[in-house]
Each structure stands twice: as C-alpha cells, then as structure tokens.
C-alpha cells in the first residue's frame, strides 16, 4: 500500500516586495519560502495511516520545483515520509495548477499509489485546484476538503466528511484508489525531532525530469496551462479608517465604538 502526498513550497512576500520588471510576477528576491500549511496536514494524515496500519505502507512526498524545494521535502522526510521525489525542468516555469497537475498525474502513473493526498489549497495562490485537476486527468475518484478520514490500508473504500460552508459536514464513502484534498485541522501535525531532521538530511531526494515522466515540454509551463498571467499589480490599500494615537487613545476610541453599539452613553 502506498500513499503519494503532493506538496508545494509556497512563497510569502517580504514587506517591501516589488513586482518584477515584466509586470507578471513578484520579484523572486522578495519571496520567503516554506512548506504549504495544508500540506503539513495531508502529510501527517498519510503518516498516521501508515503508523496505524498492520500492513506495510509507504508514504512518498512529491513536489514540483527547483532545487530549493528540497528544503520542504526534507521537512516531509523528517516528519515521516519514506521517500521524496522532486520534479523539475526549466520548461515548468510559468505553470498554472493544471500544468502542475499534468506532472503529478504522470508521477501517479509511475508510482502507482493507492491514494493521492494534496492540500485543499496553497496559502500563496489559493487556486484549490491542483489535486482535483490531477484526478480529472487520471480519471480517478476524487473528493475535496476532506476531514475525519477513516481508511484502513487494503480496504476498497475510504469514508470521510467533506467540510462544507457554514459549519456543515457531509459524510461520503469513496472507492479507492482516489485523490483526496485534505483540509487543515484534520489532525495535529507533529514537530520533527532533531534526530529525525538529521536522518532526513542524509536521505536522498529522487529528482525526475520531464523525460522520466514521458512528458513533452509543451505539456507544462505556459503552453500546458489553462490560464495566462496578463498582469500582476499591487491593489489599492484597504479602506479601513485607521484609529491613530497611543494604545490608550486607540483603546478609548474602540471603547466608544462598543458603547455606541450597545446604545450606552460614552
């Protein structure tokens, strides 16, 4: 039994970030990279299934990106992934989530996992599309925003609850193999121990190119994408009226707002 966990190294923006000269992305000098928050939960869910299982379960973390992505993959290894795969080619630059899904679908064909986990969305671009697009390309059963997953390795189905809007859950049973996008909060991701971090540093990360996956360069990058970035810009700042002054003055104004709401005289 094998679980493939697709992870993404996301980028947060440095305070004084600038748009790059072509006007279509942020200048990479201002990006602060880390493992996507949702992926921490999906990796943990896979490792939990492995640990609870009577039969051997292999957890493989896979990520599309250049060498710097190894840092996030090592985090996955330290937290319990057995193997890590990184897929890259310069032609992948400019890929939208669908082009990334084409790569992941090819990785699934090569690795033949029983389950593919992905985070519901990424904290940077938040398309909430990559995992489910991969399922669409593979023709696999799929479900999004999965909480309360119950799956025993070897079973033909998995049972979970979709976390809907407004505090509602919907219980669903799905055939396996399947693609599930995992919701934050489904578990409590572990911290990696110093020992496991050291061990992870020594583990190899398998690097695959497009040829290894039988993909042409037109399947990825802008050519393989379903959208094209026309322009990126910094939107006008919010419309909140700022309450200035010392903390005491700010709190006084806030107290007045509360009193006014409650219909009390200040």
């Amino acid at each position, binding site marked *: 039994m094998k679980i493939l966990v697709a992870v993404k190294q996301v980028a947060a923006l440095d305070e004084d970030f600038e748009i790059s000269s072509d006007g279509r992305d942020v200048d990479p000098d201002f990006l602060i990279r880390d493992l996507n928050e949702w992926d921490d939960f999906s990796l943990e869910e896979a490792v939990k299934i492995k640990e609870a299982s009577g039969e051997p379960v292999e957890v493989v973390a896979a990520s599309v990106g250049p060498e710097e992505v190894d840092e996030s993959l090592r985090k996955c290894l330290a937290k319990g992934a057995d193997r890590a795969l990184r897929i890259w080619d310069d032609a992948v630059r400019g890929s939208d989530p669908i082009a990334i899904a084409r790569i992941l679908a090819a990785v699934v064909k090569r690795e033949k996992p029983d389950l593919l986990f992905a985070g519901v969305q990424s904290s940077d671009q938040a398309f909430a599309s990559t995992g489910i697009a991969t399922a669409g390309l593979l023709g696999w*059963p799929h479900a999004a*925003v999965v909480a309360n997953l119950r799956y025993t390795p070897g079973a033909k189905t998995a049972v979970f609850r979709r976390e809907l809007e*407004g505090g509602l859950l919907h219980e669903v049973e799905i055939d396996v193999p399947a693609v599930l996008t995992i919701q934050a909060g489904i578990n409590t991701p572990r911290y990696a121990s110093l020992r496991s971090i050291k061990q992870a540093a020594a583990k190899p990360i398998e690097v695959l190119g497009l040829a290894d996956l039988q993909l042409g360069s037109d399947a990825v990058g802008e050519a393989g994408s379903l*959208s094209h970035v026309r322009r*990126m810009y910094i939107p006008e700042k919010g419309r909140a009226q700022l309450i200035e002054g010392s*903390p005491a003055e700010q709190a006084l104004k806030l107290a007045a707002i509360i009193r006014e709401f409650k219909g009390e005289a200040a």
Partner: protein
Amino acid sequence: MSGILVIAEQRRGELRPVSLELVGAAQSLRRDGEQVAVAVFAQDPARFVPDLSVAGVDAIVTVKVPQPEFDPDTFVAAVGALIEARHPDVVLVAHSVDSFGYAAALAAARGYGFATDVFKVERIDGELVATRGGYGQKVSVELDFPGRSTVLLALRGNMYKPPDGAATPEVTAFETPATASRATGKEFVELSAADDVDMTAAEFILTVGRGIGEEAKIPQFRELADAVGATLGCSRPIADAGWLPKSRQVGQSGKTASACKLYIAMGVSGAIQHLAGMKHVNTIVAVNSDAEASIFTVATYGIVGDVFEIAEELRRHF
C-alpha cells in the same frame, strides 16, 4: 452556440444564494444579444425554477441527477456534457466547497480555460479577463485565456449583486448520460457545539486569531469578551489548533455569524475565507500589529498596534 452558462448551486433542497450572484456577474459580462442560461442539477431540479427566474436569466436548464446532493463524478460528467452540448464562451460556477470537488477535474480533462477564486470578470478589448488575488491576497493577478473557446471561472462569493426583479425564462430539461458514481453521499452532520455558544445568533463578536501567539492567552481574551459583552470567537487556525472549540470559529467554513453587527478581530490577519464570511457585518474593527494584514481591506476601523496592549487598555474601560 455561445453565451454564458451559470451553474447554480443547491444543497439539501435550498438554492445557495451565491447562485444568483453568479447571474449578477453574468449580467455584467453579457454582450448584446448574448444569452444567459442557468443550469441546476438535482433529483428534482424543477423545484428551483421559481427561485432562478430572476432578471437577466434568459433560459433555465434543469438537469436530473441520481444523487440528491453534490457528487464529484456526477458533476464532472453532467456539467461536462451540458457544456459540450451548448458550447458557451463562459461558464460561471461558485468558488465553493462543491466546485472545489469537480471544476478543476472538468477543466483539466476537457481543456477549458480555467481560474478560481475570481473576484472580477470583464472583457478588455474583447478578451475575457479574470482577476484574482495572489500571494495571500497581497497582489492582484489578471488572467486571460488565449486560444480557449470555453472558459470556466469559479467566482468568489459576495462580489456580485444578485439581480433585482423577476423574469420568465424559457425552461428546458437536459438529459445526462448515465454515469456510475464512485462515491456515495451519506448523511449531513452539523458541527456540534462543544460548548453552548451560538455564533449564528451573536450580534457582537470579539475574535482572536493567530496574532495572540499562544493558547495561554485565551483566558485573557475570554475575560475581555465577557467584560465588553461580546461573544468570543476565533479564526480557523485557532480552532484547528484546538485552543477554542470549532463551534466558535467564524468565517466561511465556520459558523455563519449572520446576526453579527459589531465585530472586533484581534490578531486576525484575514485569510480570504475568513473575510468572505464576515463581509456582511456593519462595523468591523481590526486590531493587528501588521499594517499590511488583509483584514484591514474589509475592516471599517483599523488599529495598527500590539493586540495585548490594546486589550489591556480596552479592559480598563469596562
């Protein structure tokens, strides 16, 4: 054929309000002579016809599906078949948990132009342009879809107004090919209240977010909320970490704080789902040490400062 196809969303026999917002978006996008059709997928789709007969809708397509509630395989097949039959230029769906479950699969399999969480859609020099946020909503990104004859867009809720007024659209039924679904929907479960709070009824909510730093600070804010007469709520990361029960989470995936009129967000940076779930509130006061926090884009009043200092100072007044 051409035109705009709107995919309405229903759950447990109720039309979700975002369905009519999609019609509003379609109206703003339609060109002269272009048809707006709304499709509804249900076991008994005809029951939604009256609710969908609003201004700006030229046609309603009812599609009978075997499962009573959203099912990924059914939607990939049925929405796909409808698009192939009608060849719309633009398909609008809600950016919702249901669409997360099929839209990307459908677009990827059929090669439709595709974008999600779109908050603005327009035509610029005849080209369809969709705008969404990027890098945690710190930037806006304009996308276009060169060479795609059909573009599927998932629109963020609360961005377009539902149309005013009624209409008498032409109603047709669309037969879908039978598909064996590989998933079975079972029962719905309401998020159980771990404590007896009812966020949906609260008029005044004080929420804590990640900015409070550690679980040990919760009692201090609970006490502050009690003192000012507010119901204590929290953002998603706080509930995920188990610092407060899930029943106190507000925002799109938490309880709908529908009665809320005054909302004080302390240390909440404002993930998009949180903002979308609180946008209806009359007065939002955001307290955050990060002047760039997204919450300031929806707040009425903003206080840039240390949440603990402000909390302590505020406590003195009650």
